[in-house]
């Protein structure tokens, strides 16, 4: 085996070699590997042998040839998918297995992973066309796992960091490659918790491009991507507090998925979006029953990640109606299957579990869980969850009378929510800050926080919170021995809105 050597990323050394390479390469007619038509013929021969269970002569020692053949297999499978999904699915399965077992040396640009991803994509697509929901979910889930740890994820990050997918060239790139759109949507989905505002803009832009038929796609993928980009837009808009728009995007997503070849999993996800909306509208008592049914659907369809998200929402709703022990029971299966859950997502499980334990008075356990949640959410760039950690942690400090410490945490949480554009949570934090100020005997500052929160509570129709805010304000004014006119003015304004 060749020793690891002279050309290594990061870039300084690489740039030196590129500089020398250009000096040489410009004068040489560099060989570019095998011929495309030969590779396509070899790919067909490989598929025939795999189907006939004959020994496969794919020599990975000479991976230049093997790579061309495997790329050719991916192209053939992709081109045939719509017409012959069954044989495509079978071939994709077999060749995936073959490639997974092989050792590919010196794969600096992770070509093997890129091929495995393309095979998983084509298998996912074929399974959808055949209506094999569970198998499609299996491939989708495999794809996500591989993509998240691949170099192509870093490519997606680079594109995002340079210009997002908002500029025309990036958009044009998507128009040629359905797998690229699939990757972008997966990346945006994961990135939503880090930057909801920007993700909603990108997802909307992709939806519009699809709608205008600018991204020319096969029929089976067109309705799916339309629905998925609409659902994603709705999901991130929920985080920044725009319930009316979320409803509209959920309706749109449902409409597109309705004409999709495999609608059940996608419609289940839209149902989950609607459930999160009920939660945002403080209709927590309605969530548990629907969440139980949805949990069962996700389980039937093999949608494990969605199932985890559903249980987190279910537990959070039970918590808010005071059913703490039941909420912990809902989270228990997730704690048992910790190893199978993406760490960033498991951070959310611990966040809810920690909050429930602190509400049950089990403070040391709560603190342990918050610390672990903080680490996982930070590593997974789940910034919206991270902003919640401080807010929940402040409750532990408040319970122990450590009001100054609680205040600092709440202010930091409030700033983080504001930076993420999460208005409703920013307003909720302001209420907690006001309450803490009251407990510290600082009513004037409490009043100022409530006055800052009220316009958002109005705008978001957060009726229960607005009533609580008025009561906090009343107490703040009473402590200042001021007249009740300020309270009655605000109460009148809220009444006219709601």
């Amino acid at each position: 085996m060749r020793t690891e050597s002279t050309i290594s990323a990061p870039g300084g050394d690489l740039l030196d070699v590129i500089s020398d390479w250009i000096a040489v390469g410009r004068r040489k007619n560099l060989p570019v590997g095998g011929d495309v038509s030969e590779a396509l013929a070899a790919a067909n021969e490989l598929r025939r042998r795999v189907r006939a269970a004959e020994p496969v002569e794919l020599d990975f020692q000479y991976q230049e040839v093997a790579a061309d053949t495997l790329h050719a297999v991916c192209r053939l499978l992709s081109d045939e998918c719509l017409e012959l999904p069954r044989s495509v699915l079978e071939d994709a399965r077999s060749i995936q297995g073959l490639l997974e077992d092989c050792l590919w040396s010196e794969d600096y640009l992770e070509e093997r992973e890129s091929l495995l991803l393309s095979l998983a994509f084509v298998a996912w697509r074929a399974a959808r066309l055949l209506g094999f929901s569970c198998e499609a979910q299996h491939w989708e889930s495999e794809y996500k796992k591989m993509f998240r740890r691949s170099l192509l994820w870093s490519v997606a990050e680079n594109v995002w960091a340079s210009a997002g997918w908002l500029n025309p060239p990036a958009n044009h790139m998507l128009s040629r490659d359905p797998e690229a759109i699939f990757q972008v949507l997966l990346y945006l989905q994961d990135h939503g918790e880090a930057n909801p505002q920007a993700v909603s803009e990108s997802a909307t832009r992709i939806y519009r491009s699809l709608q205008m038929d600018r991204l020319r796609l096969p029929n089976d993928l067109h309705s799916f991507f339309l629905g998925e980009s609409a659902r994603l837009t709705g999901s991130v808009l929920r985080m920044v507090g725009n319930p009316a728009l979320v409803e509209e995007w959920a309706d749109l997503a449902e409409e597109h998925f309705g004409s999709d070849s495999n609608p059940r999993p996608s419609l289940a996800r839209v149902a989950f979006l609607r459930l999160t909306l009920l939660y945002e509208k403080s209709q927590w008592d309605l969530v548990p029953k629907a969440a139980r049914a949805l949990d069962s659907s996700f389980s039937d369809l093999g949608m494990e990640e969605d199932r985890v998200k559903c249980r987190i929402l279910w537990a959070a709703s039970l918590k808010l109606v005071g059913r703490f022990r039941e909420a912990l029971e809902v989270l228990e299966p997730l704690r048992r299957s910790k190893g199978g859950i993406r760490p960033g997502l498991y951070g959310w499980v611990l966040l809810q579990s920690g909050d429930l334990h602190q509400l049950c008075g089990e403070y040391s356990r709560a603190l342990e869980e918050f610390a672990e949640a903080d680490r996982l959410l930070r590593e997974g760039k789940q910034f919206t969850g991270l902003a919640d950690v401080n807010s929940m942690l402040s409750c532990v400090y408040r319970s122990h009378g450590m009001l100054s410490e609680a205040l600092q945490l709440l202010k930091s949480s409030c700033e983080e929510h504001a930076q993420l554009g999460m208005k409703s949570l920013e307003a909720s934090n302001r209420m907690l800050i006001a309450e803490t100020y009251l407990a510290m005997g600082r009513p004037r500052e409490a009043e100022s926080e409530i006055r800052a929160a009220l316009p958002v509570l109005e705008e978001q129709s957060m009726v229960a919170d607005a009533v609580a805010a008025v009561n906090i304000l009343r107490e703040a004014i009473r402590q200042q021995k001021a007249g009740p006119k300020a309270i009655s003015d605000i109460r009148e304004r809220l009444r006219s809105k709601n």
Partner: protein
Amino acid sequence: MRGKREAFTAEALAGTPLSSDPARFDEFYRRYFLPLVRRATWKHRLEKEDARDVVQEAFLVALMKLDPQRNPKAWLIQVVDHLSVNFQRKAVRRAKLVSKWSPADAGMASPGLLSEEERAYEEGIDAHGVDY
């Protein structure tokens, strides 16, 4: 299937900065050049020779713009993807031009090469450029 490609010889590299170290050249060829050519060929459906030109152009862009602090491998893939798409876009535009002005169709040419929407889109791409 074909056997292994011959390594670059010292003669081929004579008089170049890599002449003292052909193994280094060969290594770069295998690790970076060929995989990127394959990506441009198979992912973006370019002819192999066009893919080679695209990859060489990507290396030139790297010399000017590659930030060593970023992931250089991901960056190279991104640039090759971008240049490949740009290459195709220009090829389509050229084909439309040829089709419009070919003798058989010359009398029936439509007023513009592109529809209004297509033109706006192309102009948007040209104006925007590429930001790596």
